[in-house]
C-alpha cells in the first residue's frame, strides 16, 4: 500500500493562507436570542399583574384559564385557578389581573359572578349564555390595598362610583322587597334596595338602600320610609282604601320615603343612618309616642268585628289601639269573658289647666271613679268593624280601677247596639206581657151589652120622652128670647158705662194708679226688710232679746 502523502508531496499544492480576523458572527444568534428571550421574560414579568384570591360560595361556570375578569365589560384579568378551601365549604378562585388594576384592588372592591339571571324585573347577563360566565369587578374601593376578596353571591345593585348615600332600614319582615327594588321619592325613582339581611337575633330585617346623589339630601333625620310594594288595600274601622306607588313596585316591591310636613325639619341624615321601614304610608303620618300605657277591658257583649289594631277613641279622637283580644272562661262562675288589652298613648292628649292639685295624680283612677267607661261601638256599618270608645257616663254607679293580670282594668258598659237591642227586647217583652186575650173578651162582652141596650124597648121609650122634653125646652127658650133678653141688654149697657168710669180711674197717668204704684213699692221694700230681718234672726236668734249688733 502506497502512501499518497509520502508519494508525491510536491504534487500536492499547499493551501493559501489568509489571515482571518475577529470572532464568528454566529455568536450574534445566541445574543439576539438572549436579548429576545430576555425581553420576553421582562415583558412577562412586567405584564404579570397582581394575583388575587376571591372566595365564592360556588364556582358555577368558572374555569381556570378561561373565565375572564371584567370591569365595565372590558377584560381586566383571567381566572388562573379554581380550588376548594380546606373544609370544602367555599371555592377559592385565583385570578390574575392586569397591572393597571394594581392600584384599584383595595378594601371594598367587589367581585361577583355574572351569569344570565332574571332578578328585580331585569334580565341581565344574557351575553354570558354564549360566552360563559365571567367575574365582574367593581373597583369602588378606596380602602387599604388588598389581595384577597370575598365574592358577592348576587350582583350588586349599584356599581361603580355612583355618587349617592347608603342608608339602612329596619323592618319586621321582608315583604315583597328584594335587592334591586326601587326607592321612590314622590314617585320618582331615586335609589334602590341593595341588600337585606336578617338580624342576628332574628328579630327583623335590615335593608341596605342606596339613594343617588342629588336626592340623598332629601333624606333627613326624621324622614319616614315606608313599604310601597304592590297594591295596598286596607279595610279597617276607618273604611276601604286602595293605594299603589307604581306599576313596577306593584310587581317587584318598592320603598318610598318622604319627610312629613307635620314634623320639624331636621338636618340631613348621616350615611348609614338606621331608619324604620313603616308598612304603609299611613303609618308614617302617625306621630310617634314613646309613652304607652296598657289597660284591660272586660267585655261581656260580642266583640265580633273587633280586631287587634282597632282604634280606641275618646270623643271620637284616637288615643290608642287594641293590642290583644283574648277569651276567658271562669270555671267558678261558668262565665265567659273577653279581656281586651288596649294601649293608650297619653301624650296624644294635650294637658291644660294649672295642675296644682298635686303631681303624680292618678288620672285614670279619678276618671273611672267619675264614670269613665269603655264601650264597643260600630266603626263601620258596612264591614261591622268595631272600635272602643271611652266616654264619661255620670249616670252609672261609680267604679273602681282594679288591677288584673298586672293591668289596670277599665270597667265597661254594654255598647250602643247592645243597649239598643236590650231596650227593644224590653219593649217586646212588655208587649208580650199584655193580656190581649182578656182585653178582647171584655171588649166582646161590652159590645154585646151595647147591642142589647140599643135594641131594648126602654130606649125607644126614653127617646120619646126626650122628644117631649125638647119641645118643652123649645117653648121656654122662646119665652126667654122675647121677654128676658131685652132686659138683659139694658143691664149690660149699664155695666159697660160703669166699667168705663173705672178704667179712667186706673189709667197709668191717673193719680190713683200713681198712688197704687208707690204703695206697691213700699210694700215690697217692707217685705224685703222683713225677709232680711227674718234671715238675720235665723242666724242670730238672740237679737230678739239683745238687739242687732253693729
Amino acid at each position: 500500500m502506497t502512501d499518497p502523502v509520502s508519494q508525491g508531496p510536491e504534487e500536492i499544492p499547499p493551501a493559501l493562507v489568509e489571515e482571518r480576523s475577529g470572532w464568528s458572527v454566529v455568536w450574534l444568534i445566541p445574543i439576539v436570542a438572549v436579548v429576545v428571550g430576555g425581553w420576553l421574560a421582562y415583558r412577562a414579568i412586567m405584564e404579570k399583574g397582581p394575583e388575587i384570591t376571591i372566595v365564592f360560595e360556588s364556582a358555577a361556570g368558572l374555569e381556570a384559564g378561561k373565565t375572564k375578569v371584567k370591569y365595565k365589560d372590558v377584560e381586566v384579568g383571567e381566572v388562573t385557578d379554581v380550588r376548594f378551601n380546606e373544609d370544602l365549604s367555599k371555592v377559592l378562585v385565583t385570578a390574575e389581573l392586569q397591572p393597571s388594576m394594581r392600584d384599584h384592588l383595595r378594601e371594598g372592591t367587589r367581585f361577583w359572578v355574572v351569569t344570565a339571571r332574571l332578578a328585580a324585573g331585569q334580565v341581565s347577563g344574557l351575553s354570558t349564555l354564549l360566552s360563559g360566565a365571567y367575574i365582574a369587578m367593581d373597583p369602588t374601593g378606596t380602602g387599604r390595598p388588598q389581595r384577597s376578596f370575598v365574592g358577592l353571591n348576587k350582583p350588586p345593585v349599584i356599581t361603580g362610583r355612583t355618587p349617592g348615600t347608603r342608608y339602612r332600614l329596619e323592618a319586621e319582615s321582608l315583604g315583597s322587597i328584594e335587592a334591586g327594588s326601587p326607592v321612590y321619592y314622590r314617585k320618582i325613582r331615586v335609589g334602590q334596595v341593595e341588600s337585606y339581611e336578617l338580624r342576628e337575633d332574628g328579630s327583623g330585617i335590615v335593608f341596605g338602600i342606596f339613594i343617588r346623589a342629588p336626592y340623598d339630601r332629601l333624606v333627613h333625620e326624621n324622614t319616614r320610609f315606608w313599604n310601597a310594594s304592590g297594591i295596598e288595600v286596607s279595610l279597617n274601622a276607618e273604611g276601604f282604601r286602595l293605594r299603589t306607588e307604581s306599576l313596577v313596585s306593584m310587581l317587584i316591591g318598592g320603598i318610598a320615603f318622604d319627610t312629613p310636613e307635620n314634623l320639624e325639619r331636621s338636618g340631613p341624615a348621616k350615611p348609614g343612618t338606621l331608619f324604620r321601614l313603616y308598612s304603609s304610608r299611613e303609618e308614617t303620618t302617625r306621630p310617634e309616642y314613646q309613652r304607652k300605657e296598657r289597660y284591660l277591658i272586660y267585655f261581656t257583649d260580642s266583640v265580633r268585628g273587633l280586631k287587634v289594631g282597632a282604634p280606641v277613641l275618646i270623643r271620637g279622637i284616637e288615643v290608642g289601639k287594641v293590642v290583644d283580644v283574648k277569651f276567658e272562661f271562669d270555671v267558678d262562675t261558668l262565665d265567659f269573658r273577653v279581656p281586651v288589652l288596649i294601649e293608650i298613648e297619653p301624650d296624644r292628649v294635650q294637658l291644660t289647666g294649672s295642675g296644682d292639685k298635686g303631681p303624680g295624680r292618678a288620672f285614670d283612677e279619678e276618671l273611672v271613679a267619675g264614670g269613665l267607661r269603655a264601650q264597643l261601638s260600630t266603626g263601620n256599618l258596612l264591614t261591622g268593624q268595631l272600635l272602643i270608645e271611652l266616654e264619661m257616663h255620670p249616670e252609672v254607679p261609680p267604679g273602681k280601677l282594679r288591677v288584673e293580670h298586672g293591668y289596670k282594668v277599665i270597667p265597661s258598659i254594654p255598647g250602643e247596639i247592645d243597649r239598643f237591642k236590650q231596650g227593644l227586647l224590653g219593649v217586646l217583652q212588655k208587649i208580650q206581657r199584655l193580656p190581649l186575650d182578656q182585653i178582647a173578651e171584655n171588649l166582646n162582652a161590652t159590645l154585646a151589652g151595647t147591642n142589647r141596650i140599643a135594641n131594648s124597648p126602654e130606649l125607644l121609650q126614653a127617646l120619646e120622652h126626650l122628644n117631649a122634653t125638647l119641645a118643652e125646652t123649645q117653648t121656654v127658650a122662646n119665652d126667654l128670647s122675647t121677654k128676658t133678653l131685652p132686659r138683659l141688654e139694658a143691664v149690660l149697657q149699664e155695666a159697660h158705662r160703669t166699667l168705663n168710669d173705672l178704667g179712667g180711674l186706673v189709667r197709668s197717668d191717673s193719680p190713683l194708679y200713681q198712688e197704687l204704684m208707690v204703695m206697691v213699692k213700699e210694700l215690697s221694700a217692707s217685705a224685703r226688710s222683713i225677709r232680711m230681718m227674718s234671715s238675720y234672726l235665723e242666724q242670730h236668734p238672740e237679737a230678739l232679746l239683745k238687739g242687732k249688733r253693729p
Partner: protein
Amino acid sequence: MTGTHSALRLGLAGCHSCQLLLRVPARVRSSTLRCPRCGAVVHPRKPRSLSRTWALLLAAYVFYVPAMVLPITRITTLGRLQEDTIMSGVVYFFQSGEWPIGLVIFVASVFVPVLKLLILSLLAVSVQWRSQWRPRDRTRLYRITEMVGHWSMVDVYVVTLLVALVKAGALASIEVGPAAFYFASVVVLTILAANAFDPRLIWDALEEAA
C-alpha cells in the same frame, strides 16, 4: 494506529469545490485557507464548528422557553378566546381520550426538539472535553439528530394548516400564537446547530490522544 490517520493529521485537505487535494498547515486557528486552483475557501474541518454549534444551541435553548410557555394557537369560538400552549394542547388531547394525536404532537413538539438539543449538547460537550468515550455511538447519535430534524416542524405545519382552514369569521377562527415563531426558531436553530457540528471532531480527539 497506522492506516487510521485522518487527512488533517497528515496535513492534507480537499477543496470542496474542485476536489483538489491540498496540503494544509497543522494549526489553522485564525486564518482562512484558500484553494490555489479555484480560489474557494478550504477547511479541513468545518470552521469554528464547535463555537457555532454552541452559539446556535444556546439560542435554541433560549427560544425553547417562550415556545413552550407562550400560546401557540388562539382559538376564538363564539367570541370566546381560548389560548393554548403546546403542552396544554397535548394535555387536552390526552385528557379527551385522543391520545394518539396527543402522542404525535408530544413526540414532534416536545420529545424530538428536546432530544435534539440534548444530543447536540452532549456531542458538543464531549468534543469540548476531548472525550474518547464511544466515538462510534456518538457519531450514530449525530446521524439520528440529522435524520430526525426533518420531522420536527410537524407542529408548525399543523398550526399553519389549521389557521388556513378554520376561518369561520365570528363563529370560530384560529390564529397563530407567538409560540409558533419561537418554536420554528428552535427547530431551525437546532437544524443549523446540527449542521454546524462537525462529527469528525469526535474522532480528532481520539487521534490527538493516540
